[in-house]
């Protein structure tokens, strides 16, 4: 009876697996296919369902026998790494046909951190993992099979090297290096592992470490020399030593005409020297040549795609990006680059799809999330007929005004009171090398616009309006390089300040030069130059830029207004949220000084501050401020001017202050 029930259970399990498997029977598991899903239990009875793991960027299925040491070797190596690097994001499921008791002994003995799942036979059969053990299946996003390995010993080594490469693709350089070290420890002759370590160091920006690794390889004979020298070409290029890199590249090319990556580095160098045709030829060689690691092949396809995109060959670029992602499913750059080609063709829904795919790879990717948000906005706009009409009408008016150069504003009687601070970004000029990722200028300006708008102090002209206006005026990015054109554009958009500049792609990062230009005086109140290093967080850089722009605006264009009325310890000011007043904004109340007559000349001195006030309530057109201190009672028509607190004005982000003297009075929500 018990035998029958066990048999039935087994049959039921096999049926479940066959039914739930996605178009897979008992055939060979091949990279590129979707992995058949299953559900198994661990020792404690916990269920592990593969279909629920679709959103995981990587999962390793490790089929093994608890009694065979060679079949456990790879699993134990991975276990050690996972224990050493808690943030490793290494998900491994051990799967075995061994009995529950033996598995319990194994777990007790090895104290493995991975779940060991008990298989009766169905899953092992499905993955062709009954006869040869270990069988290792590395799954990527959406449960796509990336790699499939069978056998221990040498195969385990190959599996670990491939895993290190995959970690390098995911920019988990520390883990890539650790896995490479693990391989080299067991087999010091493993050249691929050493090479992966070198490229991981290079990606981290540790040029000295990378140089040392590749230099050591280059001193050996045979394939090691070539791998080492190819790596050194990449190091020199990143160090900003192009001549040295090109000389060594020639040598590698002659000795190993089949190696591809050296052409990619050459292509990058030639592109930065503005030799685009030569760069294209090199990228093409990089794509065609067979000898290259997967992560290198993917870069070759991406760079050629970027070049095509820059020439407006969007379809060709997309094909290359697709190939790059097929080779390296973790290639977030190529994934979002594809979206940008759609965006340039106005196909926003397809662009959004690409950005969402990029976000599956890394949900915290600032680049992809900014681009996705923008695409969503554009899709919504396309559906919103009224809004579209409004923009069309506005664009037409602005284009007419641009062509005729009519002044947009009527003369205003009150010259003291501030008008809203309107800022308009004009896309940055991109110079230097060919960035692996397209659209940095767009991401920077979009994100900065959002942050500045959120501050309440600055209103940034809608990007869609500028884009449509440029389209209407038939102005391209090269026209905007002319500051006069940018200024004219700023004026018709009624912007007080325009933000423009350049992005200079250097081998080890990007140099951003942002200029704020006053549209009325053509003065440049602020120039910010920042190096966005390959390791620096884009989000942090954007936050810093946002602070610097806000600080400049407040210091150079302080809000000015009048006291409308004064009662007790509170005054009403003729400035509100429309003009950029926020809670806590401080003003000085100013008193004009009588000019002094001296030798027939009138000498005017600066107005004298007679009080300090702080905003406690804000309405659209006015605000109320409490009086912090005063030399005389305040009255209607007293002038006020925004005053930034010293600690903030200094821009010293190294300081923070505790509010002293705050004692238990509680904090009131301003109602």
């Amino acid at each position, binding site marked *: 009876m018990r035998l029958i029930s066990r048999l039935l259970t087994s049959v039921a399990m096999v049926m479940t697996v066959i039914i739930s498997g996605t178009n897979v029977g008992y055939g060979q598991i091949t990279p590129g296919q979707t992995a058949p899903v299953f559900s198994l239990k661990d020792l404690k009875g916990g269920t592990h369902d593969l279909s629920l793991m679709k959103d995981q960027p990587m999962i390793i299925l490790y089929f093994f026998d608890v009694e065979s040491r060679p079949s456990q070797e790879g699993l134990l190596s991975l276990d050690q790494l996972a224990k050493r690097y808690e943030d490793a994001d290494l998900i491994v499921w051990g799967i075995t046909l061994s009995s529950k008791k033996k598995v319990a002994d194994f777990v007790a003995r090895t104290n493995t951190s991975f779940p060991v799942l008990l298989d009766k036979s169905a899953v092992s059969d499905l993955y062709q993992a009954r006869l040869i053990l270990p069988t290792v299946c590395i799954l990527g996003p959406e449960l796509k099979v990336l790699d499939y390995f069978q056998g221990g010993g040498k195969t385990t080594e190959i599996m670990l090297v491939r895993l290190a490469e995959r970690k390098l693709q995911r920019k988990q350089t520390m883990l890539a290096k650790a896995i490479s070290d693990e391989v080299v420890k067991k087999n010091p002759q493993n050249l691929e592992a050493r090479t992966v370590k070198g490229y991981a160091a290079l990606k981290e920006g540790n040029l000295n470490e990378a140089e040392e690794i590749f230099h050591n390889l280059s001193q050996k004979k045979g394939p090691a020399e070539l791998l080492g020298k190819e790596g050194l070409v990449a190091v020199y290029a990143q160090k*900003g030593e192009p001549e040295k890199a090109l000389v060594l590249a020639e040598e590698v090319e002659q000795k190993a005409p089949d190696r591809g990556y050296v052409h990619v580095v050459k292509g990058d160098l030639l592109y930065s020297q503005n030799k685009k045709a030569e760069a294209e030829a090199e990228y093409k060689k990089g794509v065609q040549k067979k000898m290259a690691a997967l992560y290198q092949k993917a870069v070759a396809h991406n760079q050629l795609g970027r070049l095509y995109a820059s020439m407006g060959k969007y379809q060709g670029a997309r094909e290359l990006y697709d190939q790059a992602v097929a080779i390296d499913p973790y290639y977030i750059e190529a994934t979002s680059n594809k979206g940008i080609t759609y965006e340039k063709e106005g196909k926003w829904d397809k662009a959004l799809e690409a950005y969402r795919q990029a976000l599956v790879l890394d949900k915290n990717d600032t680049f992809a999330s900014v681009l996705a948000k923008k695409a969503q906005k554009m899709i919504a706009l396309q559906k919103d007929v009224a809004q579209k009409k409004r923009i069309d009408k506005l664009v037409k008016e602005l284009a007419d005004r641009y062509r005729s150069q009519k002044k947009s504003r009527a003369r205003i009687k009150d010259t003291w009171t501030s008008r809203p601070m309107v800022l308009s970004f004009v896309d940055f000029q991109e*110079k*230097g090398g060919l960035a692996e990722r397209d659209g940095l200028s767009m991401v920077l300006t979009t994100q900065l616009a959002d*942050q500045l708008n*959120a*501050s*309440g*102090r*600055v209103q940034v002209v809608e990007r869609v309006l500028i884009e449509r206006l440029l389209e209407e005026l038939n102005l391209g990015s090269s026209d905007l390089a002319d500051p006069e054109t940018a200024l004219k554009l700023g004026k018709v958009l009624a912007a007080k300040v325009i933000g423009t500049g350049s992005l*200079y792609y250097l081998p080890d990062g990007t*140099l951003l*030069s942002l200029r704020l230009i006053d549209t009325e005086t053509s003065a440049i109140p602020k*120039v910010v*130059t*920042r*190096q*966005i*290093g390959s*390791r*620096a967080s884009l989000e*942090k*850089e954007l*936050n*810093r830029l*946002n*602070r610097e722009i*806000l*600080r400049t605006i*407040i210091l150079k264009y302080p809000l000015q207004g009048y006291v409308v009325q004064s009662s007790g310890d509170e005054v009403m000011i003729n400035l509100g*949220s429309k003009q*950029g007043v*926020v*809670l*806590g*904004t*401080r003003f000085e109340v100013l008193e004009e000084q009588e000019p002094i007559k001296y030798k027939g000349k009138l000498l005017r001195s600066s107005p004298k501050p007679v009080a300090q006030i702080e905003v406690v*309530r*804000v309405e659209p057109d006015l605000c109320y401020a409490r009086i912090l201190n005063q030399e005389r009672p305040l009255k209607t028509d007293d002038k006020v001017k925004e005053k*930034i*607190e010293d*600690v*903030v004005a200094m821009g*010293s*982000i*190294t*300081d*923070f*202050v*505790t*509010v002293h003297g*705050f*004692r*238990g*009075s*509680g*904090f*009131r*929500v*301003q*109602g």
Partner: protein
Amino acid sequence: MIMIRPNKLLILVLSFVLIGIPLFAETEGSLKLYPLPITELEGALFRWLTHSGFEVRRTSLKMGQVQLNAVKAKENWQIFLKPRSPLATEVQARYSVGEQPDEARLQELWGYISRYTKGPSVEKWDAYQGIPTAVLSQIESVVCIRARAKNEDIQLSGFIVDQDGLIICTAHDLKGVRDIRVVLYDGRELKGHLVKMDPRRDLTLIDTNLKSTTFISLAKGRNLLGMGERLYSVGCPVNLGGTVHSGIINGPPRLVNDLPLWQVNMQIQPGSSGSPVFDAQGNLVAIVKGRYRGTESVGFLIPFETIIEFVKE
């Protein structure tokens, strides 16, 4: 006598209850002001809380104020953010487990925000890259120059260019000076004699009786610099000898009085004028002329070619 109708009275009472009750009563010292825009601080706190496993609920209050409520099992955070100008934010927080407040966790929050506020900036990232050894090795050839002009003490930087103790520096501060003193890297002070001055090129040659084994060779200079190239100046601003600043060429060369000047994004302080400027390989590429008025980070450099013309003439 003022009569208040019952419904008005109710509204009044409710107003006091809703508006007047302090959010966090008796929370001495838990209110802090940070020089960060409210959106940035909110984002940082949101990440910190979600990373620690909390579920965060955000409530938008009037006039840009925000309240974050975060819950994880019995743990509970209440954080209230209020803008204090567009660039600063007041933060008030309360943490409790069950109903029990925990001061230590509150300190963790303040610690996190202050670490964030001080966080690794680009400058620190650059510093991490380190100053090239080739540049550091030139420090001993840099000198501080002091002089008296009318009623004023003057101080600038310069550098030794040969084994006989010839020194090059800028000229703009040295018109009509007397008593030139040269302070070496090791603190020795020597008398200097003006040999040659070119106000147009803004360069001066000073002689000392020094026999020096360390000097910056003009034969190893470099002329053509690229946009975006990283440079290093070594000088004695505000009398601090051997101070290294790094910067980047951020503008095309400008012609001033028919002479080229490089624009750099580099910290330049009083006394920096005359500092030698090197590339990453330690080659002399320029000399600091000065800074753009009103800023400390936009500077101008006299290129190497002008130094050579001056010496040759």
